[in-house]
């Protein structure tokens, strides 16, 4: 091989290795024992029982104290955790789990199948909103025939179970601690006893939570850290300053304007993930209120889609932290995500043509007016409102600017989340809005609720568009009953093809978040709530 050819091959090899090595892992990550990791968290969790809430604040702070029956690997596939193996029976209507026999609670009590049965029946299915909403109606019963076996029986085949058993979706809590008490007021919520890699030490409200290494952790040799401190720092800018000042070691997110600065600084490392304890695999999505006459015509919705330059959203709002959405299901759920869909792309001329065809004409004013639009009085201006959380105000500004150029007058209406949800889902007082719809680990959890007609109603973050399509309903029902993933893939593809044609929503950008940490620390598992299970710090 000539020298030039060798250089090309070596360069290609180096590039491939760089690309193929997960950003979370680095060659120099040689774990050492001991040390303290300080993690910045955005909000005081209030309590430390992740089984009674889906609050991101509680899960972020508390998951390292617990385990699920299963974990998830970097690709999102289920792996053993408290359960060492499992089998699927009765075509997916029953799941049998074999539990590890070397697990103890932090107080030394042995972990058994009774803990699992108790956690699901008395806590998760009553108080954990996602587990209750998705699994509650489908489950027929949970059996614990012996100390190391748990069987979940469903009324009919239930597909997503294996992705609903990690510490985020179903943390297992101790029966001997919670039995006979109200799980929401049990004092153990503030002084938790789990099975996780870290044990509770102290909780100073509004300030910090201190955890210590669990020496009896069932994964031998882990964790490496002696101590882990969750420090409450509400302001994202202060979090970055605290990292730069050496006061904290790990951030769950980095504001866009700060990313380049940290990226250029060799003292820090960064990686992206779509996992978040409050909701994973999220897509910023514009909802059209299909009950409004202006938006009933798919040509108007398609025109709005063509008028939006999503690359500009990615650059100007997310500082390129994310991806333009190419399908209704997140690309992180690769097996369900449909590639090559005919998604409307930025084409203002096409938007103008569609609006003209739909009867919205440009006259003297810059805003179009109705001329022969069904259900709309002639002369009505093409004016819509756009509801968003205050944190998403830049989306409102870009919508106003980009749709204004096509003759659509947009009025952004920023509303606090606690106001936004009833306004959109209960009062249905909106034309359009933007929501960070999180797909979750399986489309059954976070996608179905956006499109199925049974999900139109006051419950927040359901079918905001009030979209009804019998075929789509049928396909979702079928996907939920189909356990084999390769058989579910074409079903979800059909669904996505239909909704891209109907456009009850328009999918703007996928929004992974960037984690940042001190280069003195490493081996984080950013894709799971047990993110510091194998982490270390060389301080």
């Amino acid at each position, binding site marked *: 091989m000539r020298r030039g050819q060798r250089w090309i091959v070596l360069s290609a090899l180096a590039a491939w290795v760089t690309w193929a090595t997960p950003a979370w892992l680095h060659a120099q990550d040689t774990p050492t024992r001991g040390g303290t990791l300080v993690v910045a968290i955005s909000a005081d969790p*209030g309590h430390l029982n992740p089984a009674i809430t889906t609050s991101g604040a509680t899960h972020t702070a508390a998951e390292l104290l617990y385990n699920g029956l299963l974990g998830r690997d970097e690709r999102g596939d289920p792996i053993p955790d408290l359960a060492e193996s499992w089998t699927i029976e009765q075509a997916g209507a029953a799941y049998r789990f074999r539990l590890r026999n070397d697990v103890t609670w932090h107080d030394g009590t042995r972990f058994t199948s009774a803990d699992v049965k108790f956690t699901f029946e008395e806590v998760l299915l009553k108080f954990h909103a996602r587990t209750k909403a998705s699994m509650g109606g489908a489950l027929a019963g949970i059996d614990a025939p012996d100390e190391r076996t748990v069987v979940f029986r469903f009324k009919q085949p239930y597909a997503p179970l294996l992705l609903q058993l990690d510490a985020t979706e179903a943390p297992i809590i101790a029966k001997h601690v919670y039995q006979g008490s109200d799980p929401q007021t049990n004092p153990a919520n503030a002084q938790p006893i789990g099975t996780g890699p870290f044990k509770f030490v102290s909780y100073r409200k*509004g300030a910090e939570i201190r955890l210590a290494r669990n020496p009896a952790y069932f994964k031998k040799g882990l964790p490496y850290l002696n101590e882990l401190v969750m420090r409450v720092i509400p302001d994202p800018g202060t979090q970055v300053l605290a990292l730069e000042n050496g006061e904290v070691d790990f951030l769950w997110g980095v504001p866009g304007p700060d990313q380049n600065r940290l990226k250029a600084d060799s003292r820090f490392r960064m990686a992206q993930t779509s996992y978040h304890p409050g909701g994973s695999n999220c897509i910023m999505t514009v909802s059209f209120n299909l009950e409004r006459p202006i938006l009933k015509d798919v040509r108007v919705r398609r025109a709005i889609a063509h008028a939006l330059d999503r690359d500009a959203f990615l650059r100007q709002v997310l500082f390129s932290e994310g991806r333009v959405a190419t399908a209704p299901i997140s690309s992180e759920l690769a097996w369900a995500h449909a590639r090559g869909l005919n998604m409307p792309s930025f084409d203002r001329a096409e938007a103008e043509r569609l609006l003209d065809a739909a009867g919205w004409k440009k006259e003297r004013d810059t805003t179009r007016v109705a001329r022969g639009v069904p259900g709309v009085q002639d002369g009505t201006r093409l004016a819509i409102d756009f509801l968003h959380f205050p944190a998403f105000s830049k989306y409102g500004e870009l919508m106003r600017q980009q749709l204004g150029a096509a003759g659509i007058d947009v009025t952004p209406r920023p509303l606090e989340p606690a106001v936004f949800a009833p306004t959109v889902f209960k009062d249905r007082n909106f034309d359009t809005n933007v929501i960070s719809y999180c797909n979750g680990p399986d489309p059954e959890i976070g996608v179905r609720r956006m499109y199925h007609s049974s999900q139109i109603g006051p419950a927040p973050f359901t079918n905001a568009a009030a979209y009804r399509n019998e075929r789509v309903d049928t396909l979702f029902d079928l996907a939920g009953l189909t356990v084999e993933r390769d058989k579910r893939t074409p079903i979800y593809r059909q669904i996505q093809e239909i909704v891209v044609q109907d456009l009850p929503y328009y999918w703007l950008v996928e929004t992974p978040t960037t984690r940042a940490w001190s280069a003195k620390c490493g081996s984080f598992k950013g894709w799971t709530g047990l993110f510091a299970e194998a982490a270390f710090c060389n301080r």
Partner: protein
Amino acid sequence: MSGRYLVRRLAQVVPAAAAILITAFVVIHIAPGDPVLALAGQHGDAAYYALIRAKFGLDRPLPEQLLVYAANVARGDLGVSYVHGRPVASVVLERLPATLLLMMTALIASSIVGIALGVGAARRVDRPADLIVRIAALVGYATPSFWLAQIAALTLALGTGWFPVQGITDARQVWTGWRYAADVIHHLALPALVLAINELALTTRLVRTGVLECLATDYIRTARAKGLPERSVVRHAFRNALLPVVTVIGGRIGMLFTGAVLVETVFAWPGLGQLLLSSIQTRDVPILLALFLLVSLAVILTNVVTDLAYVWLDPRIRYE
């Protein structure tokens, strides 16, 4: 001052607090917003949201909720926090010391330094030192505390490494005894400085103006004519100039708390300001009502103390 006057003033606190609480309750509930979302998260179903609503009595008519709440408060029960799941009193009380420490440090420091600068400027009126103090006070008063907080963090913390940018203690070390106190003071320095700047500027301007006005009065002229040393003259003027300053400092307690919300958020100071902000975001109504009550009572009681201070400062004042 008669004891009867004091009793009457304190008795007025009860109806005032009741009126504040009822107004706050109605205003919070009239404002749009649903705490259930913060409690149940994004993926709950309708039944779950209904369960949460029923658990906290949010499904009852508003007048009934108000009556139940008022009866509980009359018994000394401020309710249970939606988010924290614990009695409101304990959630508020465990954050109170941090805010008191921050506010009192800022208030005392700004009062002492502000009075010193104000008197100093008045004694050197229209000279360079007076000009510098006036300009600095104007800039300090006009500077928003959230901006000042960011600049202080960037320069005094990140720039020099002298101060931490967040928290009340060092996360990596758990100190006890005097080292703990030193650690807290080290963390207190920047937030207290930022919170104090605005108050300092206001106090400086007030004292300077008050002392200058007093120095121009007839009794000061008489004192000087009698040959009283200038230092004694200024002391006489200063005591009379303090009356408006005391009024303003007493009335600033509420404003100081507002400033504490911003400063506590920027510096991650675990006090009531942070709690107020997060409770607004999550519509944790019981916490919000308790905080409104606490701040209102603080303002009312400070006014009573201010009235008492008048008597001490000016023996001519009598309350009947």
